[in-house]
């Protein structure tokens, strides 16, 4: 087929880029593009569920791969990180560049946004400098049409010298043509002749000085003109990558160093210093993009973005910006709280009905009583609790949250809050990772990868746990409903929502405070440069949102919770059922913790529940109820009033509830989150700090509140 000559690199692909090939005939396609161009929609539409994600070797950058079959050929699609440029300003850009340059994909598809073509062409032109096996995909044509922006695809293709395909990936439009075009490009039916950037005369001369020598060194392995330019520009990361992937160590090549020196002398003679040189290179590309864009894009309506601007004027306004943000968050939580009650109860009924049948089944098998107790009352009952308490809120919360994400609202949140994060010497995008933390702290910590500066990324990781995740909402909701809302009568779900909002705002406040504290002590430094794109608002696709958020987030988090809850159920059951002297291990431990817990306004059982809840925060309340009932296994209480009575009988006051809510907000991260922190930071030290910091904060806050209230005679 003439393609297999590239397959010699198959082993290297696997080793260096973790690309999983099933056979040497598989065709590898790199998918590049700016962020917010719908690149992931293209990726998802092409590969469906045939995808898996991991990390690029040695990098904390997500490496997503998927496959599709087209005319009996298998295509492996490698989703590169979304970047604006390939000049290696960040790890993402380095990863994308290295794959296109050294991974030798059979073709590279660059996804661009039809509504913002000019800026996207910057990346296209940079990629065309590296490889000629490119298909440009002009996506979001539906949005462009709505805004009356017309892109002349034929002309664009002619100007770029590579095939161009228009798509509206969300509706599946144009994807078939994209596949056809990729095939034709690979089998040679389509020939390409990429446009050249017109560099300044002196720069071209400088390139000519170096290029023949580079060409001798690397042959056809990479584009020698591009490599020359990068080396003249002093791009050290390219040197490293060449050494890594091609085993060329340029830094010791005397001849090359001489040539580079000659090139620099040439440039210096024309008054071009290092910064000027970079300006010159980038300017040439930007100007080319501008020129091409002018020729192919026509705006029927010059004010196409008026609606977006109007919406922004309200959502980020001085007066309404923050209240609307809090209000939207409130609505999301209210819908979650109010909507989850009924399905939660139904799930619980269903699962406990199954439990009854399991018991019958075990007695039919004739197993000993303790086997039944461990498996059914220990493990199964814990699982049933976790599923029925967690699944409905998550199945409501995650799609709602994804909806806000899809609409393009989250960057506006970052825009609104950036000032406060800057004051805390932290990164503006920390507002985004914090929002992700509401869903799941582990997910929030993974999202911290969008922050380039290592210092600010660590701050974002360490403080992510200060916002309550989905696993802690049930605790907050239960306590708020029982002790705060019970007095509010008909408005109980609103009162509960308000107290949870208060908890969240407190969490955000503590996040900022601790971020600042870290910036002034162990993570000293100034905020790094920050640019945030506010992409156009998009019409969300509700159906897809529900499917994806349930598949990607809800089931993922639930699966994880189930995996940790099962063994935890076993341990808890054993602790509650093995007695030493006249009390269970659980009671002994609780008694031991009691004096300390009392100082913090709680009791030993609550503290024990938090400790046993390390695997998953959602089981804290169930454990507590179980301990109080002292019946040795978790029960389903029929009504909240019964639950309240149980707590009151165990000496609870409103202060106990408040302190437990505060401690739930500020204590060690759950096991999964800690494990994720360890993975993301590659350091036990930072994992340990992430453990100790919220814990100390919680102890201090609870101590002050509990002792303060007692001193003031409020209890």
């Amino acid at each position: 087929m003439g393609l297999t000559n590239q397959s010699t690199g198959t082993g290297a692909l696997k080793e260096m880029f973790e690309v999983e090939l099933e056979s040497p005939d598989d065709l590898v396609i790199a998918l590049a593009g700016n962020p917010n161009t719908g690149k992931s929609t293209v990726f998802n539409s092409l590969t469906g569920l045939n995808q898996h994600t991991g990390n690029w070797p040695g990098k904390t950058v997500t490496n997503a791969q998927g496959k599709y079959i087209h005319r009996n050929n298998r295509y492996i699609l490698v989703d590169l990180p979304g970047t604006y440029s390939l000049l290696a300003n960040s790890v993402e850009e380095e990863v994308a560049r290295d794959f296109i340059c050294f991974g030798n994909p059979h073709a590279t598809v660059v996804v661009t946004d039809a509504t913002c073509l000019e800026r996207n062409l910057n990346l296209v032109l940079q990629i065309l400098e590296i490889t000629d096996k490119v298909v440009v995909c002009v996506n979001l044509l539906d949005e462009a049409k709505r805004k009356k922006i017309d892109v002349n695809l034929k002309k664009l293709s002619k100007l770029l010298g590579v095939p161009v395909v228009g798509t509206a990936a969300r509706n599946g439009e144009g994807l078939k043509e994209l596949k056809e075009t990729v095939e034709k490009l690979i089998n040679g039916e389509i020939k390409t002749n990429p446009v050249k950037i017109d560099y300044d005369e002196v720069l071209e001369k400088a390139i000519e000085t170096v290029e023949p020598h580079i060409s001798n060194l690397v042959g056809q392995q990479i584009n020698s003109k591009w490599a020359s330019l990068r080396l003249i520009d002093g791009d050290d990361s390219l040197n490293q990558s060449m050494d890594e992937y091609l085993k060329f160590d340029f830094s010791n090549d005397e001849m090359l160093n001489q040539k580079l020196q000659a090139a620099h002398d040439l440039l210096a003679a024309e008054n071009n210093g290092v910064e000027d040189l970079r300006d010159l290179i980038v300017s040439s590309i930007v100007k080319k993009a501008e020129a091409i864009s002018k020729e192919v894009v026509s705006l029927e309506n010059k004010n196409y973005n008026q609606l977006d601007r109007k919406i922004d004027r309200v959502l980020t306004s001085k007066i309404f910006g923050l209240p609307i943000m809090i209000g939207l968050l409130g609505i999301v939580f209210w819908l979650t709280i109010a909507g989850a009650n009924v399905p939660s109860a139904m799930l619980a009924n269903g699962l406990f009905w199954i439990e009854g049948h399991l018991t019958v089944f075990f007695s039919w098998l004739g197993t000993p009583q303790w086997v039944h107790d461990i498996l059914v009352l220990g493990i199964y009952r814990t699982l049933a609790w976790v599923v029925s308490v967690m699944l409905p809120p998550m199945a409501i919360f995650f799609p709602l949250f994804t909806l806000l994400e899809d609409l393009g609202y989250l960057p506006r949140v970052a825009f609104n809050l950036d000032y406060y994060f800057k004051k805390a010497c932290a990164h503006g995008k920390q507002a985004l990772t914090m929002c992700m933390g509401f869903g799941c702290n582990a997910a929030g910590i993974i999202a911290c990868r969008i922050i380039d500066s290592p210092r600010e990324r660590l701050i974002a990781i360490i403080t992510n746990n200060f916002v309550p995740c989905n696993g802690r909402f049930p605790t907050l909701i239960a306590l708020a409903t029982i002790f705060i809302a019970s007095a509010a009568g008909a408005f109980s779900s609103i009162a509960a929502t308000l107290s949870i909002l208060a908890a969240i705002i407190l969490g955000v406040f503590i996040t900022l405070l601790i971020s600042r504290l870290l910036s002034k002590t162990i993570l000293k430094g100034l905020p790094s440069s920050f640019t945030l794109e506010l992409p156009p608002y998009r019409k969300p696709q509700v159906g897809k949102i529900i499917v994806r958020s349930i598949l990607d987030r809800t089931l993922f988090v639930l699966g994880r919770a189930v995996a940790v809850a099962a063994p935890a159920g076993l341990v808890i059951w054993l602790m509650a059922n093995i007695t030493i002297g006249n009390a269970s291990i659980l009671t002994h431990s609780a008694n031991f913790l009691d004096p300390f817990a009392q100082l913090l306004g709680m009791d030993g059982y609550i503290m024990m529940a938090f400790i046993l809840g390390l695997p998953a925060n959602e089981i804290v309340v169930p454990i507590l109820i179980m301990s109080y009932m002292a019946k040795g296994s978790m029960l389903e209480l029929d009504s909240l009033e019964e639950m309240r009575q149980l707590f009151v009988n165990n000496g609870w006051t409103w202060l106990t509830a408040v302190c437990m809510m505060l401690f739930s907000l500020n204590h060690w991260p759950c096991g999964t989150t800690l494990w994720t922190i360890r993975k993301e930071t590659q350091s036990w030290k930072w994992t340990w700090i992430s453990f100790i910091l919220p814990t100390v904060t919680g102890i201090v806050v609870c101590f002050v509140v509990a002792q303060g209230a007692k001193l003031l005679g409020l209890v």
Partner: protein
Amino acid sequence: MAKNLIPLNQLPIGSFGKVKRLTAEGISRRRMLDLGLIFNTTVESLRKSPAGDPIAYEIRGAVIALRSEEASKIYVEVI
């Protein structure tokens, strides 16, 4: 020519400026260039965030928010 130059963060909301000079260096400068902030690029100051900083600008068809630290290193001529 340098007489009418002001830092971008002082460009009044709703008005346009032409980029004339970048005083940022290193990666920060590169980022700006990658955004298309090259010589003579027209920038519109769109709106302030609730706290007044950052400010959103329209740069080559995209809306980009810049903190005052960055924007003050971009000098524009008011047009």
